[in-house]
């Protein structure tokens, strides 16, 4: 290899020794030290970091739960109860893991809302968006597999209903379902493989998250005004500015999740899952985890088995092509007077779909679900391309520092001259 390549020099000789052999120090300095963040980013931009931290928390708590869990139909339920009652701090691990999953989805939904509202999916970050949707799909698969493991009534019947979705596929459906289950119905073979897959998928997610972060670092983060960084004045270094901001967000998140773990650990749990699985009795009312409920509502809103399944999967797949459905070059909805309201309507609609997805599919709820379904797909296929075509966007600011000088700096009593831009200060040396 090239012995003459330029090697970064640090003050610390140990770092130099490592850097010469593996340039990982300069990589971290570039990507997480000097990485320029648009200085107008608000707290919405902390949810990527929060999601990463939650993923790690889920992996760690999951590994420790697996040490005491038994993936067998006769013993799974009892082993979970043993974790709750006899294993030291087992209750804490399990409540962190079960509520962590719910919070993971809350965070990721906010992260997605951020990306949609401020147009982060647009050029040049389309691939980043695609990787993100892929992560979302993997998360849904992982949470479904994990929900089966306690082997309660909801676990069993949730697994039955979801795996039966595949039997809707013409010709190969039944065979595919049997192959996925390893039996003609959900049984021990199913539980075993679900456990194996639930263990490995988070590491796959971790890998895709790595690509997702690497991709966003190529063109830099988007910002609330959706305009590019044009000069050093527009950005601050990730370290320490964004790191500190993320840390504050993390503290707030820690308070919220702790409140649930310690004071309402079963708020988001279904009571039926504390009844051991019984293949002969279906609970009167099967409900999915709330974070999957919007998609469940779409499934039930269609009076045809195959049609319902196709639309449900279509509701996720449609996200992949969003960057090409949106014709507007303006990223941020803050500068899109019409689309902004349709976008907010989309978020509200998604919430309403989730709400009716938790209720019986009858009467008024069914009607609401059908209207919600129409808006969901109408938003992507009609509103998004059409509004992008007819809408006249507001005038974009010239630069990020321009926005900063006009809106933010006067309020804190300084000004462009009063506060030296951190990016202009000397780079921190390790």
């Amino acid at each position, binding site marked *: 290899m090239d012995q003459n390549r330029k090697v970064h020099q640090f003050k610390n000789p140990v770092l130099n020794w490592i850097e010469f052999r593996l340039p990982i120090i300069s990589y971290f300095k570039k990507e997480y030290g000097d990485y320029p963040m648009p200085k107008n980013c608000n707290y919405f931009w902390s949810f990527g970091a929060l999601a990463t931290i939650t993923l790690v928390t889920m992996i760690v708590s999951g590994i420790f739960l697996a040490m005491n869990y038994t993936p067998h139909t006769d013993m799974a339920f009892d082993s979970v109860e043993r974790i709750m009652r006899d294993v030291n701090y087992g209750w804490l691990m399990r409540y962190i893991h079960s509520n962590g999953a719910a919070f993971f989805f809350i965070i990721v939904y906010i992260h997605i809302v951020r990306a949609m509202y401020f147009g982060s999916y647009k050029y040049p970050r389309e691939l980043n968006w695609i990787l993100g949707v892929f992560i979302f799909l993997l998360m849904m698969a992982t949470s479904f597999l994990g929900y089966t493991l306690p082997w309660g009534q909801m676990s069993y019947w949730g697994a039955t209903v979801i795996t039966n979705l595949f039997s809707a596929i013409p010709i190969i459906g039944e065979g595919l379902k049997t192959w996925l289950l390893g039996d*003609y119905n959900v049984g021990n073979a199913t539980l075993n493989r679900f456990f194996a897959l639930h263990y490995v998928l988070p590491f796959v997610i971790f890998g895709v998250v790595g690509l997702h972060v690497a991709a966003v670092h190529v063109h830099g983060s988007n910002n609330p005004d959706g305009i590019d960084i044009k000069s050093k004045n527009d950005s601050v270094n990730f370290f320490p500015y964004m790191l500190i901001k993320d840390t504050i967000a993390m503290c707030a998140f820690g308070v919220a999740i702790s409140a649930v773990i310690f004071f309402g650990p079963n708020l988001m749990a279904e009571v039926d899952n504390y009844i051991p699985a019984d293949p002969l009795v279906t609970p009167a009312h099967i409900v999915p985890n709330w974070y999957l409920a919007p998609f469940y509502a779409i499934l039930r809103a269609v009076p045809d*088995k195959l049609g319902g399944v196709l639309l449900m999967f279509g509701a996720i797949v449609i996200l992949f092509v969003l960057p090409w459905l949106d014709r507007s070059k303006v990223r941020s909805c803050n500068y899109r007077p019409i689309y902004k309201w349709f976008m907010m309507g989309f978020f509200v609609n998604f919430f309403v779909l989730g709400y009716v997805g938790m209720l019986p599919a009858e009467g008024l709820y069914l009607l609401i679900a059908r209207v919600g379904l129409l808006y969901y797909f109408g938003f992507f296929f009609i509103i998004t391309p059409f509004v992008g075509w007819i809408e006249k966007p507001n005038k974009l600011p010239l630069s990020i520092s321009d926005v900063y000088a006009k809106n933010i700096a006067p309020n804190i009593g300084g000004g462009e001259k009063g506060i030296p831009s951190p990016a202009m200060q000397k780079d921190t040396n390790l």
Partner: protein
Amino acid sequence: MAKKPKNKRRDFLQLSTVTLGAVGTAAFIWPFLKSMSPAEDTLAAGSTEVDISAIEEGQSITIKWRGKPVFIKKRTKDEIEAAKMVQAGDLRDPQDDADRVQKEEWLVLVGVCTHLGCVPLGQKVSDMKGEYDGWYCPCHGSHYDTSGRIRKGPAPKNLDVPPYTFLNDTTIKIG
């Protein structure tokens, strides 16, 4: 033109290497995919014999066969009449009642809703039986009639009839 034979040789080598590699990979993946199919002992999970002498007219019992619930119902005259009255052509999954039973009063069904696999209600006296007085699936609202045929709701097919034989007047062998 002098180069052409050489290129042909290289093309052939590339193509055959890639083909052999693809076939080899597919052959290597197959055992892994096949290992996920039901194992031999699962397939061999044979048959069940049921004593039906204690079932009263109008009563229905649930037994477990290959991990699934099977309903065995002794139908009343009214229920048989209701099932026979229906024109098969009007149904979503057209089937005559006569094709679904061996002896008119005995209805044997796999108690798994053909929509998404829940167990329909209707086995107990207190259960909801749906608009056609047979079975009602609480998950997504499918209604089955007194022959276990789908009449209303999202399910695409009638409740399955498992393979069974009458060993004598009081014993059924299922499977």
